[in-house]
């Protein structure tokens, strides 16, 4: 029986979760939302987190109906992520650990997503597609590590979506990706975009530049060549959203399928913020059905960054005997998924 409190704050979400022996007791979260056309910057995001975190810790304890003395371990996101927001979580976790005299554990953010997905869906040994604003990886477990089979060679898929939303000035509330997904449902015409798969890896930066030119004709194109009699574009923003989703999700499904064939696996788990996109889930499900495989997907409560996943992964580490001295309780912006020794899995 391990009762863990987890604090997550690696990007624009700040969340606190409490889990007791695999049972969800609390999962509260606040998101820093910027005006349309703007992204979130480290300093302002950290300020938002500082103002929200103490109330979230109290709310989580209240929701779980626990006292601090009922907890066994305090967990926080050690990385990867933006340093200033990460530090907010780490400092609060360190303080609580000293104040309440509880052990402290730093958790890899990506591992948090994977373990949360496995807990909620019950998937045993799936190929994991981890897609978010900062990460795009195809992961398979082997020999005590989550190994990265394919990943983006430039920007993350969520970053590509977020930046496109900024170009067309979509709202960031609740998230840019959600608004692209809704607008894409009205798309009628499929517009050809670059499709970039390199072995098991993918690339999104060229697609973003291309669609940027389509969305704002004249702005960039005039620099390169003057075409006065160029016709007005006959596609809408909805068409662009639709085509962007169709193209980049097809790339993700393709590399996932390659990893499945390579590892001879029949299960797929999608985690990370982009993972709650229903079109991505639908495409992945069709691919799985064609191969007699099975798709495991989760909804936004667990897909999008949350404190619960940090609590859960930390609880797994804690029960496997992992300890962390206080002087190691720092944060790091660079922390690869395959750096973590997965000592809690027996297979």
């Amino acid at each position, binding site marked *: 029986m391990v009762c863990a409190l987890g604090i997550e704050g*690696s*990007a624009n979400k700040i969340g606190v979760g409490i889990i007791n022996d695999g049972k969800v007791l609390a999962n509260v979260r606040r998101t820093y939302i910027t005006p349309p056309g703007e992204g979130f910057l480290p300093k302002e995001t950290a300020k938002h987190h500082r103002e929200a975190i103490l109330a979230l810790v109290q709310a989580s304890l209240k929701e779980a109906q626990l006292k601090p003395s009922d907890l066994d371990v305090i967990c926080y*996101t050690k*990385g*990867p*992520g*933006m340093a200033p927001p990460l530090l907010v979580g780490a400092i609060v976790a360190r303080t609580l650990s000293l104040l309440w005299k509880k052990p402290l554990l730093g958790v890899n*953010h*990506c591992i948090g997503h994977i373990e949360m997905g496995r807990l909620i869906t019950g998937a045993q040994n799936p190929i994991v597609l981890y897609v*978010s*604003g*900062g*990460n795009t990886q195809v992961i398979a477990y082997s020999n005590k590590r989550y*190994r*990265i*089979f394919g*990943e*983006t*060679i*430039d*920007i*993350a898929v969520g*970053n590509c979506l977020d930046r496109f939303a900024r170009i067309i000035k979509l709202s960031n509330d609740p998230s840019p990706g959600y608004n692209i997904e809704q607008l894409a449902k009205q798309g009628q015409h*499929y517009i*050809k975009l670059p*499709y970039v*798969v*390199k*072995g*098991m*890896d993918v690339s999104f930066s060229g697609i973003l530049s291309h669609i940027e030119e389509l969305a704002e004709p004249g702005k960039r194109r005039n620099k390169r060549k003057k075409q006065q009699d160029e016709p007005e574009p006959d596609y809408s923003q909805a068409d662009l959203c639709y085509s962007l989703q*169709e*193209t980049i999700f*097809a790339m993700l*499904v*393709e590399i996932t*399928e*390659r990893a*499945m*064939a*390579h590892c001879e696996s029949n299960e797929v788990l999608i985690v990370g913020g982009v993972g709650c996109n229903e079109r991505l889930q*639908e*495409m*992945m499900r*069709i*691919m799985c059905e*064609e191969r007699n495989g099975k798709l495991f997907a989760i909804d936004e409560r667990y897909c999008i*960054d949350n404190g619960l996943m940090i609590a859960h992964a930390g609880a797994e580490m804690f029960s496997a005997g992992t300890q962390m001295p206080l002087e190691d309780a720092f944060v790091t*912006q*660079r*922390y*690869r998924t395959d750096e973590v020794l997965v000592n809690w899995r027996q297979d």
Partner: protein
Amino acid sequence: MALEILKQGAEGRLYLGEFKGESCLIKERFVKKYRHPELDTQITRQRMKAEVKAAGRCLAAGILAPRILHSDLTGHKLYMEYFGSAQTAKQYIQETVAKSTDEQAKQSLEELCTSIGGIIGRMHANNIIHGDLTTSNILINPNSNSSSSYDVIFIDFGLSHYNQATEDKGVDLYVLERALLSTHSEQPYLFEHILAAYRKECGKDEDAVLAKFEEVRARGRKRTMIG
């Protein structure tokens, strides 16, 4: 004619068949229902054409590749030369490691890597970018006439293209390095031998390609990965 299915991969099926009296391999690509039909048609055609072109270019440059006997774009089928007694480099490496001592294995794998690296270098010198370099896409075909007792044959040119840009060559090498790390994590020395042999054959852009390769390796968010 009943066709024997040899292998079912992620993108297609391989059959053993016949074309104008010659036994051959038939590679059929499936329609992917999850993709937009227009995108699916475009990708399938593009990859079949890439495969035909690259195989031709390789043979013209004296690099071994399966000869394409016939392409059926509407039926999504390619008819190509079949190497019945070949095994993939992945199998070869795993078998070599399993049945010989560490020293012997290392030596014979070094030889293999030298010839793999040399061939990739020659491909790049001819501006052929393979696009999907893995040990599953390299065949080891026994040949008693050649000096090394086997031929190394590259296959699966579906993701290939023709480009002299150092960027593309750098990415090609990077894809191979990653594939070796995930598939042969117990033999970390393979890639350095491949790279050493590559440098001797890759032509005048050697330094530029290597610099680009380092750049691709270290590229921005790749290692940082902001969560």
